[in-house]
C-alpha cells in the first residue's frame, strides 16, 4: 500500500514544489511563503458547480445560433448542429467531423468526464487510479480545444464582412458556447486530482 504525502503529514507547495511538513490544514511554505493547502479546499464542490454551470450553458449554446450569415439581405442563422448539418449536406464530411468533435463531443465529453471524476471521488469507483488520472489529463488538456469553434466564428465574423453581399455576425450561441467552455475549464482547474488517490488510499485502508 502506497502512502501519500498527506498521510505522512507532508504537503507540496504548488508554487515552488517544496515539500513542507503540514502543521495545519492551511500553512505557509517554508521556502516561498506561499499559503497553501494540502488539498484544494472544496475542490469537488467547485468542480461540480462549474460542471453544472457548463452543462446549463451547453443547452443554449446549442440551441442558439452561433453565427448569422447575411447574404444579399437574406439572413441565415445557424446553430452548431445546423452548421454541421450544412457541411454534411454540402459533402464536407471532414470539416463536419472536426467541428462535430471539437464543438460538440469534446465539451460534452468534458462535462461527462468531470461528472464522472467527481462521482468517482465521492463514491470510490472501481476504475483504476491510473485510468482515472488518465481521464483527468484528457479532460484537462483537450478542454481549450473547444474554443476552436469560438475562434472560427470570431475569425469568420471579422474576415467575412462584405457589407450587403455577405456578412457574418457572431450570435448569442457563441457567447454561451464560450462561457460553457470557460466553465468546463474552470471545472477542470478546480478539480484536485490528488483526491483521486486520497480516495484510493482510503479504500485500501477500508479494505485493511
Amino acid at each position, binding site marked *: 500500500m502506497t502512502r501519500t504525502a498527506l498521510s505522512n503529514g507532508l504537503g507540496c507547495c504548488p508554487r515552488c514544489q517544496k515539500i513542507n511538513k503540514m502543521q495545519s490544514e492551511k500553512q505557509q511554505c517554508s521556502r516561498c511563503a506561499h499559503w497553501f493547502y494540502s488539498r484544494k479546499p472544496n475542490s469537488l*464542490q467547485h468542480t461540480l458547480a462549474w460542471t453544472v454551470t457548463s452543462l*446549463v450553458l451547453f443547452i443554449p449554446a446549442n440551441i442558439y445560433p452561433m453565427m448569422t450569415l447575411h447574404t444579399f439581405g437574406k439572413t441565415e442563422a445557424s446553430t452548431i448542429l445546423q452548421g454541421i448539418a450544412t457541411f454534411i449536406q454540402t459533402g464536407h464530411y471532414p470539416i463536419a467531423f472536426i467541428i462535430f468533435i471539437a464543438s460538440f463531443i469534446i465539451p460534452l465529453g468534458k462535462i461527462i468526464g468531470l461528472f464522472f471524476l467527481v462521482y468517482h471521488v465521492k463514491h470510490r469507483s472501481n476504475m483504476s487510479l491510473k485510468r482515472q488520472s488518465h481521464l483527468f489529463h484528457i479532460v484537462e488538456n483537450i478542454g481549450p480545444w473547444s474554443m476552436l469553434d469560438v475562434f472560427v466564428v470570431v475569425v469568420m465574423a471579422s474576415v467575412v464582412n462584405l457589407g450587403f453581399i455577405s456578412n457574418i455576425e457572431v450570435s448569442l450561441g457563441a457567447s454561451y458556447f464560450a462561457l460553457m467552455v470557460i466553465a468546463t475549464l474552470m471545472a477542470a482547474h478546480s478539480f484536485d486530482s490528488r483526491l483521486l488517490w486520497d480516495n484510493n488510499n482510503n479504500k485500501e485502508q477500508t479494505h485493511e
Partner: protein
Amino acid sequence: MSNKQHHPLDAIISSKESVSAVWLVPIIALLFGAWLIVKAVYERGVYITVQFNQASGIVVGKTEVRYKGLPIGVVKQVEVTDDLQSLLVQIEMVASSEELLTDNTTFWYVTADVSFQGVTGLDTLISGSYINVQPDLEHRGNPSRFFVALNEAPELDKSTPGLHITLKTNTLGSINTNSPVSFKQIPVGHVSGVQYNVDDATVDISVFIKPEHAYLVKENSIFWNASGFEFTGSLTSGINVKTESVGSIISGGVAFDDPKFSTPLPSAKSGHEFTLHPDFQTAEMGHEITLMLDWDTGIDKGALIEYQGLTLGVIESFSKIDPTSRKITAIAKVSPRVVPYLTSDSQFYTVTPELDLGGVTNLRTLLKGSHLSLRPSLKGEPQTQFNVYAHKPAYDYDEPGLHIMLTASNVESLKIGTHIYYKKQPVGTVQAIENKTSEQVIVHIHIKEQYKQYVKSNTRFWNTSGVKIKAGIQGVDVKAHSLQSILSGGIAFDTQETVNAKSVNNGDLFPLLSSRKIAKQSLPLTLLVADAKGIKRSTRIIHRGNVIGSVHAIKHKQDHHEVVVGLLPEFDYLLKESTKFWLVDPRLTLSGVTDTNAFFGGSYIAVLAGKGAFKQRFHMYQKPPAKELHASGLQLTLMSDNGASLVPGSPVTYKGISVGQIDSVDLSNNGDSTLITITIDEENQHLVNQFSRFYVSSGISLTTDLTSVSLQAESVETILRGGISFYNPEEGATPLTKEGEKFTLFSSRHKAKIAGQAISIKFTNIAGIKAGLSIKFHQQIIGSISYVDFINQEQGAVAYGYLTDYGKRFAVEGSKFYFDEASIGLTGNKHISSALQGGFIGVSPGKGKAKTHFIAANSAPATKALPYGLNLTLAANSLGSIRVGNPVLYKQVAVGSVIGIDLADNADKVNIYINISDRYTPLVTAESKFWNTSGFSLEAGLFSGVNVESESLESLMSGGVAFATPNQMSTEQMTLPAVFKLYQSVEPEWQTWSPKIPLASQ
C-alpha cells in the same frame, strides 16, 4: 456529545464542509437558462398553416414570411394536401404577430415579375422568393391559424407608407394593376388594385402614391386616364397628340395634375376619393352642372361647351330623358374657372351647324358637331342646373353694347344670330325675334359696344336678306350685302350725319325697313286717298321714270286711307303746294302693255311737280291731273296717231337724258289723233326749238337691209317704260319759248329722222307700191313712204312720204320719182339689194322751185349726164344688147360706163349716154370711133379656120361700147361733137390705132 467525550483527547477536528460560494455560478447559469427558457417559451413563434396553390421555390426553413420586407416568419414545413391539389405550408410566425393573424390576414407568394410596368420582386432573384403577409392591422377578423394564400399580390396594402387614394370611374379602360400614375409625366405611383364597386356601380381604382410624392396630390387634384394616345384635333389649333409615358401608352396609366383654375387645396390624405376622368380634356372640366336640353338639339355626349371659341366644358352623360316634358337632362363638366360665372343669370344655348342656301354658319360645328355655348353672368345666385336654349338667347340690357328693338312686318330670312351690318361690317346680331301681333314682329338686336355710336335717333335699319337684283336698261345690278347676308339674311343700318341726331338708349324702337332703298327714302310724306286699291307697301313713287320713293305704310282710317310714303331726300323739291300725286295702273290690252313699268313693277304713284310752300300731306288722285299751263317748265302738246305705250309720268328724254315727263295722254277733240301733253323742265327747255322732232322712244326699232342690221333702242329703260325723245335737226335754232306749242310725235326715231319734207307722189302703176318703201337717190336713202292712199284702182295711188333732211333738196320741180325694182336677167342684174326689199322709189334730181306733189314717172328717166367725168352721147340705129351700166372699153379696159339709154327726141336714133371717168377723158377726141361690142364676131374661112372675137367676156354677155382714137394727134384741139355715132361693128383699122396719150397719174 462524543465531541465532549473526546475533548481531552486529541480529537480529530474535521471541519464541516461548508457550501462553497462557487455554487452561485451554476445557480446564475441555471437562472439564466431558466430565463432563457421562459423567454423562449414566451417568444415561441405562432405556427400557422397556409394553403398555396403552387409553391415553387418555397424552401423549408429558408423561405421567409415578410411584412414590409421584414421577416416575421419562416416556413417550417411543406406538405401536400390529401387531394394533391395544393400545398400546406407550415409557418412559424413571430409571437408578436399572433394577434394580427385573423381571417382577414392575407398571404401571397412573391416572385420576380417582369412586365411593362417594370420589374417587381427583383430582390427575390437573389434572396429567393418569399411569402408576403398583409396582417389584419385593424384586428377586425377572428383569430385564425389556417389561411389560404392569394394567387397574386392583393391591392397594395394600405399600411405601405405613401398615399393611398381611390379613383372612381365608369370604365376601366386599359388601366391595370401596376399601371403607372404620373404627375407631369413623372412616375409617382402606381395602380395598386382595381375592383368593381357594387354599391355605386363604379370601378374603384386604388392608387398608391409614393410617400415622397404624396404631397403632390391635392384634395382637388384632377385625375385622368392617360392610357394610349389622345388626339385632339381642331380646325384652329391643329392636331395635338398627347401621351404620357410609353408604358402608359401600351398598358394604360393614370395622370393627375393640380387644378389649373383654382387654388390647390391641402394635400390629400389616404383614403381620399377622386374621380378618374376619361381624358385630360374632361379632367380639366372639374365642375359638374346639370343642363336641361331641348328635344332636338343634336347634342351628344362629348359635346363641348364653348364660350368665344374657348372650350369650357363637355357633356359627360345623360341622366334623364323625359319624353313627356321633352327635356333631356345632361350632366356636364365645366372648367372650374367659369364656376363664378354660373349663376341664375347665366344662359346656355346650343349652337348647331346650319347649312342652307346662304352657306354654312358655324362651320366649325359642322366638323365638330353641335356644341353648347355659354353666356356667363356674374349676377344672380350660383346655380348648377341650367336650361339650355335652342338658340342664342337675347342679351340682357346690362350686356355692354346697345340693345334696341326693330319693328317689322315680317322677319323674312332673319334669324337669331343674324348679323347687323354697318357699312358691310358686322357690328351686332339679332338677339331675339318676338311675334307681337300677327302683323308685327319685334326684332331685338344688339350692337356691339364699339359700334354703338353709329346708331343715332335718325338711323334707319333695313333688311338686307337675300339678293336684290335690279335689272334696268343700263344693266343688271345685283345688290347683296355680303355672301353671308345673302345666305343668312342680315340687317343693315345707316345713319345720316346730321347735327341734331340724338343718341339712342337701350330699348329704343326703330322700324325695320324692307330694303336699303326704302331706308334711303327718308323723306316722309302722307298721301290721302279714298280708295287704297292698288296701293300696297312698297308701291313705288315714280317721277320721270325714276323711282324716287315708295309706300312705307298704309294707315286705314274710317273714310280714307293715309299712305305713308318715303321719298329720297334729294327730291324734297317735289313737296310743294301744287305738287300732284296720282296712281298709275298697268293696263294690259290686246295691243300690248301700256306701261311695262307698271306692268312689271305693279301700280305706282306718279308725281307732277308743283310750286308753292313746303307741304307733306297731299291728296292723291286716281288719274292723272290736267297740267296747268302756268306750271313750271315748258308745256308742249304732241300729236300722234296713237298713244299706245305712252303713259303719264314717262320721261321725255333728250340724248338719253330725262328732261321732262309726259303729263297726260288724251284723244283730240275729233278723236282722230292723240294729244299728249308733256312738260320740259325749265332748266332744259332751251333744248326745244321749233324744229325739234319728237318721237316715241319706246320699244325697239329694227332696220335691216342686205348689208346691215340696225337695232335701235333709246335705252332699255324706255323700251320697258316707254317715253318720248326728241332731237333737233337744226342746231342752233332759237329756243322755243311759247307754251303749248304743238308738235308731231313720230312713232320712231327713224321716222323722225327721215321726216324732213313731206311729199306725195302719185303712181299710176301701183304694182309694188307700199308703205315703207325707201326713196333712194343713187342707192342712198333719202326718204321713205309712210303710207299709200289708194285713190282708185285704175287711177293709181298717192304715196305719202318724207324726205330726209338731206333729201329735201329733191323736193323741187323737175325731180322725177319712179318705182324701180330688182331685175335679174341675162343682160345684167340691177338693184339686187332691192330684190329682197321689194323695190324702191328712185329719184332723179331736178332743179327749180320747191315742190311737194309729184307724179311718178313710169320708169326711171334716162340719165344723160353725171356731174363728174366726161359725158358723151352716142347715137345708134338700134340699141342691141347695150344696157345701162355696160362698160365702155378702150383697148378692152373699162374706162367708163353706159349711164343712160333713151330714144332720141325725134325717135330716129337711140341715144346712149356714156360717162368716161375723169382720168380717161383725154382718150376721147373728136375723131374717136365708138362701136358696139355686144356679142361676138364669128369669121369662118375655108383655110383660115374659125375666128371668134369678142371685146370681153363681160361685154360678150352683157354688151358694151368700145372706142378707139386715131394715131395722128391733131395739134388743134377740136371740140367734141355733141353726138358720136355708134357703129355696129368695128373696122379692123381702128383696132390698130395706138396713139400715145398722156393720162393723168392716178
